[in-house]
Every structure is written in structure tokens, then in C-alpha cells.
């Protein structure tokens, strides 16, 4: 099951990047504290022709994106937009939640264009609207299935265009 926002103009350029990838596979960063769920989402995405990087928590994800603590000392925000076309993150994680991670990504002038999808095993309407309001592209209910990934790709291809 997937819940999504209507297309958002601010994510347009990254959608275009996703579309114009051509020979290049879309690169997805998947964040989840569960080793089982990381393995599952990685396979689901690879089966949908995506290149996948996984991170076990928010801080590691931010480091990978070039938004880590030590990167902040650079006056120029590095962040590597070309690195990643989509970020999919679990909501319930110890320390930095998926929502906290979403906020940090949207605060970054470099990374805010990258669509962020939130996953959760719990269907909590206030949680869902909170994430969508903060700029999440979609909210998906776990456990994820192949059909959810297909719907995700379809939605990303069709919106922000």
C-alpha cells in the first residue's frame, strides 16, 4: 500500500534526472535500522533495475549524502546530488527517526530536490500527514512488496514532469 502527494514542483529537477538517466540505473539510498528490511528493500530495488546503497541509520545516511556533521564545517555545502536519485527511509529508527532525516534533507539547499519516501509498519494518519507536509514524496506501508516498488517508480516517473 502506498500513499502519495500530488506532484511537487520543487522535486522537478531530480525527477528529470531520474528520467534522463538513460543507460544509467537510478541510484537509491535505502535507510533502515533492521538488517532484514535492508536486505529485502535492496533486493526489491535491484529487481527493479536500481542501483542501491543502504544505510543503517540517519547519521550514516547523511554522511553518505555529504551532509554529515563534519561536512558542516565547509562553507560550501558539498552534498552530491548526482549521487542519489531517491531516498527511501524507515520512519521508526532509534536516535534520528525517518522524519528527522527527512527534515535534514529538506533543509539542505543541495539535497532538498531529491525525492524522499517514508516507510512504516504502522498506519498512523497523523504520522503520514506530518511526513507529507514536511515534503515526503510518498508514504509506504511495510512489509514492502514488488508491486509497491513498481508503483513507486511509476509515481516518480509521472510526477514533477
Amino acid at each position: 500500500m502506498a500513499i502519495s502527494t500530488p506532484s511537487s514542483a520543487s522535486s522537478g529537477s531530480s525527477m528529470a534526472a531520474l528520467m534522463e538517466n538513460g543507460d544509467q540505473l537510478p541510484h537509491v539510498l535505502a535507510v533502515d535500522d533492521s538488517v532484514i528490511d535492508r536486505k529485502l528493500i535492496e533486493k526489491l530495488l535491484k529487481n527493479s533495475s536500481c542501483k542501491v546503497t543502504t544505510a543503517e541509520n540517519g547519521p550514516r545516511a547523511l554522511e553518505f549524502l555529504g551532509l554529515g556533521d563534519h561536512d558542516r564545517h565547509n562553507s560550501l555545502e558539498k552534498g552530491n546530488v548526482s549521487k542519489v536519485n531517491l531516498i527511501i527511509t524507515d520512519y521508526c529508527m532509534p536516535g534520528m527517526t525517518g522524519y528527522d532525516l527527512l527534515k535534514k534533507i529538506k533543509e539542505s539547499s543541495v539535497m532538498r530536490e531529491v525525492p524522499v519516501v517514508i516507510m512504516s509498519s504502522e498506519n498512523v494518519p497523523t504520522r503520514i500527514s506530518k511526513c507529507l507536509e514536511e515534503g515526503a514524496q510518498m508514504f509506504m506501508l511495510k512489509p514492502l512488496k514488488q508491486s509497491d516498488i513498481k508503483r513507486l517508480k511509476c509515481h516518480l516517473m509521472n510526477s514533477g514532469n
Partner: protein
Amino acid sequence: MEVGQVRRQWVDYTKSLFLEGYLDGQFLQLQQLQDESNPDFVSEVVSLFFGDSEKLLNDLTLALDQPIVNFKTVDAHVHQLKGSSSSIGAQRVKNACVAFRNFCEEQNVEACLRCLQHVKQEYYLVKNKLETLFRLEQQIVAAGGAIPMMGLGF
């Protein structure tokens, strides 16, 4: 035993696991993800589940053994176990976790201890079943056969 017979045993055993509620559709998702590039995907995920679950069950035993039980901690562990059992399709373990979380909310130690027993029971049952299933798969592969693909149509 010839390979056709073992394959039929595997099909019958798998069907029984679904009919008895040990596994649900999510397990089929895992099987469908397994392919030539990843022929051991299901057993790898299930092994991770076994390791993760046993640690969580130990942590839960410890947490409920404290003179003053921290229900937030207990709930966090059960939430994790509920998530992972749901992700692999271990339906009865997942359902036992749902009941467990309700008693955490009520902060009822006695009920939680009973729930923990129930979760442990269901976990060891499904572990046993899955190990039996993997043994059948090994027999099929050793005999040069291919593991059947299960659809939901049964």
C-alpha cells in the same frame, strides 16, 4: 527418494505451512525474489531473522526480569520483532507480537511474561518448520532438481 517425490513433498509441506497460518503472503514475496543471481536469498533472509529474533528474545527475557520493568524498552524490542516477522511472513509470530504490545501498553508484567512465552513458542515452531523446508530444498538441489515456484492459486 527420487527427485519428483521430494518436490511433491516440498509443495505439500509449503502448502500446509500457509494453511496452518505459520506463513503468509509475504513469504511468497521472498520466494519470488529468489533467482539465479541470488539462489540463496530466502535462506539468507531467514537466517538473519533467526539471529535477530534470538537476540531480541534474550533481550526481552532480561528486560522483563528487572525489578522495575522498563516497558518502553520491552515495547521497542517487541516492535522490532513484530517488524521482522512481518517482513518474512512469519504470521503467527507477528500476531503474538501484536498481542504482546497491547499488554506492554497496559504495563501488565504478568501478561507480558505470558506473551513472551507465547512468542517464544511460535518462534521455535516456525524456525523448526522453515529448517525442515530448507532441508527438503537441499535434497531437491542435491538430486539435481529445481525448487518449485509457489503461486497463491492453491
